[in-house]
């Protein structure tokens, strides 16, 4: 029993060594399709989607569904991997390069950490499309295109909309410390809103803390009449905080879920900024397929914007159907 275990460990080690040898800086011959047993492609194009989303994040779940839907419809083999740690994400890219995939889709929350890996992929002849964040560095690294929403533009539009709704002081709730995209949204909101905008840090894994902290802020500053949540769960917590503090503030949020949809219907939430991230998964797969079959490119060197779209009382019913299926 024990010896069998040793043999098995030895085989595994040998496999790792083999893999390590493959990932050396040699891969210039990208035309070659590899047919080894590890491939699970349904068509002859294999696309690797590598994001910085953490497992369990509602937002990235929709991106994944988008990429997989496109893969199914176009007969493209799509694999999805993610790691919030930039170093680990870079390794996932290296891994995809060593597997000689036909295309890589990558979100760049931390572009500099991914630079070498992405450039190596491009050097190896693999077309790369960046999504979600990192549009400023996309072309510089040699990516074919960028599909996403400009966080600061989205924030700015949200700020403008809140101002138009007559708000004078805004609370911008950041639920993940150190996420640059969330800070860009708040900064954008600040410039679009014009009036006073204050940031508040909360912990996404503790809903009671989110509610209590927003409530405390509302109690200590009666001038706050708008809360901008950057996550639908936070929006729900904010709505109950407002009730608890008997404040007159109203909530607006980024992204959707079923509860936010209901709150928009009932008027508790003013609107949701929707970056339609389903497209950030779906479109790159289409673009890579078109590039392979027809040498097409999209965007003309400019980012392809998937948002901001807005969901408010006027269109909430239609969107609600799709949110239920995890596609909005």
């Amino acid at each position: 029993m024990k010896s069998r275990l040793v043999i098995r460990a030895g085989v595994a080690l040998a496999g790792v060594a083999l893999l390590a040898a493959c990932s050396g800086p040699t891969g210039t011959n990208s035309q070659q399709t590899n047919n080894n047993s590890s491939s699970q492609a349904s068509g002859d194009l294999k696309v690797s989607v590598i994001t910085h989303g953490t497992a369990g994040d509602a937002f990235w779940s929709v991106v994944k569904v988008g990429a997989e839907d496109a893969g199914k419809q176009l007969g493209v083999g799509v694999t999805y991997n993610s790691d919030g740690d930039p170093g680990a994400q870079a390794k996932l890219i290296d891994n995809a390069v060593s597997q000689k995939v036909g295309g890589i889709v990558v979100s760049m929350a931390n572009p500099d950490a991914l630079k070498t890996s992405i450039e190596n992929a491009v050097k190896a002849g693999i077309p790369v499309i960046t999504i979600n964040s990192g549009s400023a560095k996309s072309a510089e690294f040699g990516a074919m295109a960028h599909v996403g929403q400009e966080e600061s533009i989205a924030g700015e539009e949200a700020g403008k909309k809140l101002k138009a709704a007559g708000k004078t002081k805004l609370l911008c709730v950041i639920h993940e410390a150190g996420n640059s995209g969330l800070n860009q949204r708040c900064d954008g909101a600040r410039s679009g809103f014009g009036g006073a905008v204050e940031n508040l840090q909360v912990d996404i894994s503790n809903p009671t803390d989110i509610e209590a902290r927003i409530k405390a802020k509302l109690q200590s500053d009666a001038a706050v009449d708008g809360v901008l949540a950057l996550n639908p769960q936070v929006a729900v917590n904010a709505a109950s905080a407002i009730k608890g503090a008997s404040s007159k503030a109203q909530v607006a949020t980024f992204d959707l879920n079923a509860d936010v949809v209901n709150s928009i219907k009932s008027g508790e939430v003013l609107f949701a900024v929707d970056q339609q991230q389903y497209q950030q998964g779906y479109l790159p797969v289409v673009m890579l397929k078109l590039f392979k079959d027809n040498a097409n490119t999209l965007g003309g060197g400019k980012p392809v914007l998937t948002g901001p779209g807005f969901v408010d009382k006027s269109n909430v019913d239609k969107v609600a159907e799709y949110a239920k299926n995890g596609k909005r």
Partner: protein
Amino acid sequence: MDQLVKRPEIGAMLGALLVFVFFSVVTEQFLSVGGAATWLDDASMLGIMAVAVALLMIGGEFDLSAGVMTASTALVTALLATQLGLNVWLALLVSLAFALAVGALNGWLVMRTGLPSFIVTLGSFLALQGLNLGITRLVTGSVQVSGMRSAAGYESAGFLFASTFQVGGTSFYVSIIWWVLFTVIASTVLMRTRFGNWIFAIGGAAQSSRAVGVPVVRSKILLFMTTAFAAWLVGSINILRYASVQANQGIGLEFQYIIAAVIGGCLLTGGFGSAVGAAIGALIFGMARQGIVYAGWNSDWFQLFLGVMLLAAVLVNNMLRRRAERVRR
């Protein structure tokens, strides 16, 4: 004075008083009824868990799966109610059975294998995290379960777990009552019953307590089940209050429970501590967390402040305990 110093929670009490006075002076809102409702709510959810974790720690074990369990129980309840259309009360019962089973499994594995509970519950922590995510996505296609409000029995169950009561025109969450109740029960068991004596005995010296006939295995398994029960209570309060649950909820909170218990005078090595102390530890946590917001300090520095404060509290505790040990001799 010497009698007082022997109590494990005395350091925490002093700390709580300090934090309370500090934020009452520095901010306007902290001492108001509305302010109290806010920080008591935060403290209550942490406190329910901290008390259970304290009992377990006095018994000489850890439970790293406690934080994730609060999400697991909420997910089980929500999935059963929204996907299978079960009555909320029935869903709550099933998820309670699930929680107790996981707690018993944790305890049984620790006792059966002789591995440190740190390792065993680290395993169940990761396993539950994976299950939470995997099953939620499999069933709903998303990583959240929502829509509890339309489930049958939501309102009556919500009344028990997530309603509010009025004091001086301000709403207080019922979770505060659960917290006080749970602390009183835990403290009574610990201080006044034979089982309480056993907990101290097996945490202090498992071998010798076994020798004098204490049922060590059964007691420890019961303690793990108590933690699981508390996690079910918190999970149920969460799901009924917010009507939706995210699969990555609760991660990292297990350390806050342990910290609150330690502030409250529990030893990391077992055999010493108190339930009331853990509840006060949670109170310090809640007061500081919300006090910082009332003070309007830049929230970027929030974790730093928490860390320094916790360290200070533990140091004061340590000092008092040394003194207490001198007094005892």
